[in-house]
């Protein structure tokens, strides 16, 4: 690592030196000059050595405004980060990039959508940007993981034409948060790019997440919101994206589901809807009509009778009680059908509530004998 990067890293850890002031300083001079300007406030030799140790231990790289490798995407950003810590390869930012964000308390259907969308987009060479939070964020990157696995069992991630994962996190890169995403954290830094503007050792403090979201938004070409409450982190990301003229798309959900309140609001306000990867690819200007058809949906087509049951379950999660009420069918027959659908992966039981894992079939429509057509009632 060169000395200037190290000094920039040390400067970013100086208390009372905000990112905005540091950015203004680094925009006009090298970090070594900025050190001199700071005088007594400048980090000591010990601080710098400690930072070098941390960066080496955490295998982190550093870039700063004015450095040759500072991402071009961020150079002209309205709130550009002064210093960026990263693991992985900054060249990933050269790929087409789609952000996938959403609530932490997602429905099973939402998680399914996130991972499938990310999987399909990654299969088309689109990098997936997300925040590695619980819920939708994590499931988006799980989809990428699956795509990379499928695409190249033996080719290394760097050589494949698959989209790669990009994650922007709020804490220091050596502070994994949340803990359960440790595997994904590792996966992203090994096969893609893991970025943070917080120096190593920074805890995941609440105020850092909205700040993180601005970088996340700035790195996307298109931002897709899978599920979101009417307020929350995803909506902050959406605002940041809109400030930067980045197009925002949303996945429609049931009007009765609070987890879709935010996305439905966005749709009301004129955002484009997303029901599958094609919608996003079209927004990116990538025409995939001539590509080979998707093979990911390997689920066997349910019988007409099971289709009917599925049509009663669309829209929102239902309990067995509600389902029996809607269909007025026999408990045993319904249970049998649910068992069939579950083993084929069409529905999932989420703590007693059944959810349909669909590809956005409209009410009353379904696959019959392999063709998508109206289901007879």
């Amino acid at each position, binding site marked *: 690592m060169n000395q200037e990067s190290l000094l920039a890293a040390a400067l970013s850890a100086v208390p009372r030196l905000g990112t905005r002031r540091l950015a203004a300083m680094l925009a006009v001079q090298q970090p070594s000059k900025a050190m001199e300007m700071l005088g007594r406030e400048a980090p000591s030799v010990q601080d710098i050595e400690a930072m070098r140790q941390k960066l080496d231990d955490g295998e982190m790289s550093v870039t700063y405004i004015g450095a040759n490798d500072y991402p071009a995407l961020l150079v002209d950003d309205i709130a550009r980060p002064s210093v960026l810590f990263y693991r992985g390869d900054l060249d990933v930012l050269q790929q087409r990039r789609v952000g996938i964000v959403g609530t*932490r*308390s*997602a*429905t*099973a*259907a*939402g*998680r*399914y959508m996130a*991972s499938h969308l990310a999987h399909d987009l990654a299969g088309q060479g689109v990098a997936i940007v997300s925040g590695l939070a*619980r*819920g939708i964020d*994590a*499931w988006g990157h799980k989809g990428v993981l699956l795509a990379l696995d499928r695409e190249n069992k033996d080719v290394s991630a760097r050589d494949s034409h698959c989209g790669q994962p990009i994650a922007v996190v709020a804490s220091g890169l050596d502070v994994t948060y949340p803990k*359960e*995403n440790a595997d994904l954290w590792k996966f992203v830094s090994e096969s893609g790019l893991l970025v943070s503007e917080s120096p190593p050792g920074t805890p995941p403090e609440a105020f850092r997440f909205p700040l993180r979201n601005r970088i996340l938004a700035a790195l996307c070409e298109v931002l897709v919101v899978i*599920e979101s*409450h009417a307020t929350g982190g995803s909506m902050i990301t959406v605002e940041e994206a809109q400030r930067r003229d980045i197009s925002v798309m949303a996945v429609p*959900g*049931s009007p*009765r*589901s*609070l*987890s*879709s309140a935010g996305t439905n609001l966005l749709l009301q306000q004129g955002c484009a809807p997303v029901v599958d990867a094609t919608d996003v690819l079209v927004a990116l200007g990538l025409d995939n009509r001539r590509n080979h058809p998707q093979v990911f949906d390997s689920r066997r087509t349910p019988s007409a009778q099971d289709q009917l049951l599925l049509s009663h379950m669309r829209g*929102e*999660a*239902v*309990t*067995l*009680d*509600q389902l*029996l*009420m809607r269909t007025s069918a026999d*408990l*045993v*027959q*319904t*249970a*049998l059908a*649910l*068992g069939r659908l579950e*083993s084929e992966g069409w529905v*999932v*039981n*989420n*703590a*007693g*509530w059944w*959810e349909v*894992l669909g590809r956005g079939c409209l009410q009353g429509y379904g696959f019959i004998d392999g063709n998508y057509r109206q289901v007879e009632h």
Partner: protein
Amino acid sequence: MAFASVRSSTLLGVQGKAVDVEIHVGMGLPGFTIVGQPDEACRESRDRVRAALLSCDLPWPNRRITVNLATSVHERKGGAGLDVAIAVGLLIVQEILPHEIAERYAFIAELGLDGTLRPVAGVVPLVAAIDDRIVVVAQDCEREARIAARNEVVCAQTLAHLVQCLIGESVWTPAPIRTVVNVAPPSIDMKDVRGQTAARHALEIAAAGAHHLLFVGPPGAGKSMLAQRISGILPALTDAEAVATTIVHSAAQIPLPATGIITLPPFRAPHHSTSLVAMVGGGAVTMRPGEISLATNGVLFLDELGEFAPTVLDALRQPLEDGVVRLARAKSSVTMPAKFLLLAATNPCPCGEGMPGVCVCDDGAKKRYLRRFSGPLLDRFDLRVAVSRPHVDELLADTPAESSAAVALRVLRVREMAMQRSGCLNSDLSPDLLDEFAPLTTSAAALLRYHLERGRLSGRGYHRIRRVARTIADLHGVVDYASDPSCDHIDEAHVATALALRVGVHPQLSGDRL
């Protein structure tokens, strides 16, 4: 001879133990000592006995009195039920009563200061412990005393009256005239439950096979309402069950019904602040039976399961498997019956909604909430059903649902069928009995294999599903065992229903697989 030995009994857990109260009156400074590990109530009988004797104009020997409580084992003896035995012993020593009295009678009652005989707790097991003598009890518990008595039971009103009866100068208080009391049917009925088809089915299956049942649902969904209605669909107790249950209730000093014996399955619903000892039993000297023993042959309903202390819930695990609870303390150990149907209700998460898309709890909050009930406890519920709020149309519908009486009939039929087939209820089928009485069809086995391979079922869960499937098959009348025992296979449909009624309670967290 200044010595007498009078038979009485003391209580430990739910069992009476015969005690020989030995009395010696001799030279020395006047005094009264009780030896043989008496407890506080027992030690105080000195004052009660003295006051009672004097109130009845009976003499008190002004010499050195030693009372020994002799049993076959060294254990603390508790309770005030030995009072009359001590008093009678003193009278025998003073030759007011003949020595043969001690050979023919046993005494179980407390004394009031005015000499009245008072009832004591646990008369049923106390009387049952005496096998070869006529038992004298207080009038108020005469009916209770006869439930498990192996020989004659008589009662007297005061100590003076007792003495007269014993020497033949008076007659025993006659048994009060029995008025036949009809046990009122429970006023709560299944027909009040609107909608909730799956939950109703689950309740019926639970009652028919004695399967443990957990309701999960938002507040106001009717979980508690449903649970309370299980009493109405359970069959009445058999004679043996009734006696066993009555003994436990008597030992715990719970007022018995007007008929004297408990004939309906008990329904115990302890509050969630219940302590460990109150739940499983224990406590000082007498080891009072806990809620799980009081629910024997009936239902233990734990509302708001998540609010119970985790230690209390985990203490249920062993009794749930064994049907008895074994308590050991430094001075004694007891085994009490605890064969109950566990019924529980809980909210799915802190906000109570649980429905994906409506619930606002994040993963951390859900995890913390779910840590309250351990996996092993949840695994012991054969049926776990999500209950949702009934639809408005159903709530306001005029047509009542099926009544408890109709359901109870089916439950009784299935229970009889199970007893006739395997000699036990379906929930008690051991794995080898399961193979014999609930063989799986190929498709049913394949379905179970699928879920076992995906890790959705544990080994215990696998057997539990098969037991529930057996009950479901019985309820659906697919099998007429009497006519054709060979076609007794469990179908895929029954297994699927059992699986659908045993949902995972843990909401999926972002780390889980889909």
